[in-house]
């Protein structure tokens, strides 16, 4: 009974609820081979990532003027030009439920569910659960972590809602993220040693448990039996993990902590996200690049004004130019993530080929605090179901939730409605 996937998923769910507990490298290396055997022949694992940034975008530098396949790469998305054929720019969508009288408070938490915060649980028992968590319900059970929630500004509001009342905490410290993914041990050698040691601990512990059982009552023996069952389950996984050939994946040493430099912080987080996909530790990631109303200053770009005051540009061209610089910088660090996924080969393509990555914001014009039209770009081909290489533009009042449902559809995830969605965007 402990060898079934169901048991694994419950345990995985237990871990998924934001506990930053270091774990040994057990199922991380249960990847490709075991997992693909469980899925229909020839279908590689699907990946979802939702990367959000605050304060929208200067829309005429985000949306190309031309529609279709031959569009001129807009300034803000310029760093993604090498991945043009994986890129789908989606214009004209509106997140009406995300429009609230308190944008600073609710922008992040309404992006991926398209439900007003006070309507959680109202229209349906799932109203308010975000798209990433819906995806995780379907594809998160086969990996050790059903989903991963990251940020570089831990004080911000949360993007992911697991239930209508439970938002998931976001981890910002790269060391903590690393330990969550790869467990204790700063180097490869340490990790292997720890794995081996864990095996011997479990073996000896079983002997001790057997001795504990003598002269206990029957009901107590049941307790020890449960204990032994749990021990044996972990032992099995340790044995499997030790047998895996881990030379194909280069796992770096653990980062020491949070870098002071923002570029380095972004690079580290995106590296970890790429590793998490490659090692198949999780298939669903949300990443909040910064929080709404952030006061961060991008001194690396020579900008000394706080991000939030700057975002209230009042149509001042110099301020708008600075915002474009920041937004392009965000795309630049994000493109490193895409680059890594594009280089990661796995059977039948690259990780990027099998991924669906939404890059965008729940705000459009930061000066007006509006949600329409939202900047949204999709990277990846979703195993060939997303065309890529095009700019699609939808008429006024097209729903952002439709894009989310479309992404589900392209990944064969049977979620037909989220928020105020009404249909699928077939052009994508």
């Amino acid at each position, binding site marked *: 009974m*402990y060898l079934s996937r169901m*048991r694994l998923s419950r*345990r995985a769910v*237990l*871990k998924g609820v934001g506990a930053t*507990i*270091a*774990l*040994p490298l057990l199922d991380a290396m249960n990847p490709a081979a075991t997992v693909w055997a469980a899925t229909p022949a020839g279908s590689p694992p699907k990946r979802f990532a939702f990367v959000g940034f605050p304060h929208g975008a200067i829309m005429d530098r985000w949306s190309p003027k031309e529609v279709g396949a031959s569009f001129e790469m807009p300034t803000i998305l310029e760093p993604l030009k090498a991945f043009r054929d994986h890129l789908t720019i989606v214009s004209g969508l509106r997140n009406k439920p995300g429009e609230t009288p308190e944008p600073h408070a609710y922008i992040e938490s309404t992006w991926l569910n398209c439900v007003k915060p006070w309507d959680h649980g109202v229209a349906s028992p799932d109203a308010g659960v975000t798209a990433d968590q819906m995806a995780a319900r379907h594809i998160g059970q086969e990996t050790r972590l059903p989903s991963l929630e990251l940020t570089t500004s831990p004080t911000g509001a949360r993007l992911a809602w697991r239930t209508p009342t439970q938002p998931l905490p976001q981890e910002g*410290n790269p*060391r903590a993220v690393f330990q969550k993914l790869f*467990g*204790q041990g*700063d180097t490869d050698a340490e990790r292997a*040693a*720890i794995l081996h*040691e864990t095996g*011997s*601990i479990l073996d*000896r*512990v*079983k*002997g*001790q*448990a*057997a001795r*504990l*059982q*003598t*002269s*206990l*009552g*029957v*009901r*107590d*023996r*049941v*307790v*020890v*039996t*449960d*204990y*032994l069952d*749990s*021990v044996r*389950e*972990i032992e099995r996984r340790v044995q499997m993990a030790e047998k895996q050939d881990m030379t194909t994946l280069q796992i770096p040493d653990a*980062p*020491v*902590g*949070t870098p*002071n430099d923002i570029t380095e912080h972004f690079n580290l987080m995106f590296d970890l996200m790429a590793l998490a996909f490659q090692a198949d530790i999780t298939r669903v990631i949300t990443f909040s690049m910064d929080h709404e109303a952030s006061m961060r*200053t991008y*001194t690396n770009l*020579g*900008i*000394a*004004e*706080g991000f939030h*005051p700057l975002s209230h540009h009042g149509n001042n061209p110099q301020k708008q130019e600075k915002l474009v610089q920041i937004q392009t910088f965000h795309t630049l660090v994000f493109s490193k993530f895409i680059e890594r996924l594009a280089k990661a080969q796995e059977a039948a393509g690259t990780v990027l080929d099998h991924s669906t990555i939404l890059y965008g914001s729940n705000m459009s014009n930061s000066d007006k605090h509006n949600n329409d039209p939202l900047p949204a770009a999709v990277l990846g081909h979703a195993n060939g179901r997303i065309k890529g290489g095009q700019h699609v533009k939808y008429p006024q009042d097209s729903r952002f939730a439709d894009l989310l449902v479309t992404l589900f559809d392209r990944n064969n995830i049977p979620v037909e409605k989220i928020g105020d969605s009404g249909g699928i965007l077939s052009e994508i």
Partner: protein
Amino acid sequence: MTRTSTRPIVVTSLAGVLVLSLSGVAAKSQAPAAPRASDAQLATVKQYCAGCHSDRAKAGGVSFEGLTPESIGQHADVFEKAVRKLRGRVMPPPGARQPDAASIDALVAWLEESLDHAGQPRLPEQVVLHRLNRKEYANAVRDLLAVEIDATELLPADDIAEGFDNIATALQVSPSFIEQYVIAARAVAVKAVGRADARPGGWTFRAGPGTQLTHVAGLPLGTRGGILAKVDLPSDGEYRIDVADMATHIWGNGMEFENPLVVTLDNKLVYQTVIGGEEDMKLYDQVQNGALDRVNARLKNIRFTATAGPHKIGVAFKRRTFAESDDELQINAPGGGQDRLYRVNSFQLQGPFDAKGLSQTPSRERIFSCHPSASAEQEACAKAIIAALARRAYRRPVSPEDVNELFQYYQDGVKAGGPSSFEAGVRNAITGLLASPFFLYRGEHIPAGLQPGATYAINDVELASKLSFFLWNTIPDEDLLQAAISGKLSDPAVLERQVRRMLADPRSETLAANFLNQWLDMKRLDEIVPDQAVFPYASGRSDPRADFRTELTLFADSIFREDRSVVDLLRAKHTYLNERVALQYGITDVKGERFRRVELQQSARWGLLGKGAILMAAAYPNRTSPVLRGAFVLQHIQGVPPATPPPGVPTLDEKDIGTTKALTMREMMAKHRSNPTCSSCHAVMDPLGLALENFDATGRWRDRDRYAGVAIDSSGTLPDGTAVNNPDDLREALLRRPGQFAQTFTEGLLTYATGRKLEPTDMPTVRRIVRGSAAGDYRFSALVQAVVRSDQFRMRRVPPAGAPGAPVIEGAH
């Protein structure tokens, strides 16, 4: 027998309800002679109870028609419930004819006597294999290895049953738990022994709640705000601190003043700098974009050397005189002064860079009882260390087999070891020790040769464990363990002396911090986050909950430590205040964050019902709830948990009320009084809660309801006609029957001590304990001693030989 549960108390006949008919039950051979003078009691039952609890009406699924004295003992669970409701005066329900107080008391006495003499088996079968919960784990590690750990980071949360986290049946394991348990063992061993070759790691510390403008306890006087971090450094070497950016944007607030920042290591100054002031303002003006980086650079890469082991690191600002500021002299927060100043929000500690070895730390001193120089001595020393630690960790004498098992771990560690292989071996042995089920589980073994159903006393060594986890929430100390191993602990005089010693020891503080807080369900306090819109001065940075918790623990601990009557919990006139709590209580002459004992002048504040922690936990984030408070009194003081409400009761939604005038709580609960289905419970609960209505949802006294604009009306009547118009009336009404509270307290104590749910068959013991301590006014130590002496604590019953489906595993698997 089965009976339906959670049914409204007054209900008309329902189809399919199992009728409990008690007439004509044949007397079993073990029934004793019927108790005396039963005719008057039977008449009371017939007159006041059998109307609803008849064969025809079957209220609550129970019928008393044709009741005989013999049947009481045979249906202990029904009658224990009946007794409980009678004692709590919730039965007969309000509105029904009420017997006078003397009749109820006589009926209760008669029922209890019958139950006490019933001759039922007293010890239910139970699971005795008891897993350490994570608090116990952390305490055990602290006492064993002298190292502090944060168990909430290392181990998953424990399931709660009966309100406590130490109930054996709820403490199960799963593969996930085992995995984390092994990781925890390793992490603790590394922390305790240290590693001379530690690689750099990083820790982030954030500022706690509360204003960053006042002095933080533990940091040097003369500082304001900041963070005090207690950290265990893994080895000697160089460490580095990076404080979070403060100059976050051009022309920010507060930059016009100089803010001197200090960094201290164990209260010694390690670094200081200044943020802001005229020089920095000039920098902003003239250098502009590069200025921020230059200012923030002063907060980064702060280096210092430190030894391994526990240290206190402080990062804070020096306090400035208010005279230099143009701001308000006093902001509306305790101790508040200047506004618009910088805060230390977080800092990151990294290191060791260049680990240089391991100095002595408290845990290393504890572990290494010998320091072998020659390799020939190492093995013997390792065995000595292992034996000493295992004896305390396993809480029993260790066998050669125990030592050899752990020695194998030592040998593995030596093989992998490197230069300090001896220490690596010891570290590995400690990992094995902490991962062992002998450490994790407390078992009570059945002596050979006993028949199923026979009772036996647990042995001394097992008793020592049980005692120390009860009174100290940790492993036995050497004194207790020695008394047990030498076989003396079961001697009643020795046992009593040990209990007295343990109560006097500071470690018994866990009875207040752990037992009492759980017994009163104070974890609810974590869930009630005060609404900032309604309580701007008691929320966010000024949230009083943590301080209220401290007050409650100190208050209870003082009652226990002074060995006062447990009833003093309801009536003691003192408490422990710091400035924050005092302000909430309307007391203005207590200053500073230190808690000190204060005699309360306002009598409404005396005892538990005047304590902020309880008043807040039994309320909502934005308003009071007389229902929650009434339920609290019923459950935790009267010992009568209220029945669950019927399904489909709409919540009080102020929006739906539809009047232009805001209503008081009393008015909003009008339906409780007008609807007879509701009033059967609410007529009991509401007056209890309304009596406390002058305390708002943050525990502050108020004379007026500020939304309704009228004076608070806290008047009410208990079902027996007693007027209860304010907290003093309520307290006095409760104190009229102090034995009731003592019994509720004893039930909680016995549950916590035995780690299992109490059954109806345990109630005679509870009553005996309460009766026995009545003459001494229910002194705390008397109750504790009686619990320790009880059969429930010391005896077990041999379970049946082989239940179907339960595998019997012999020897190694």
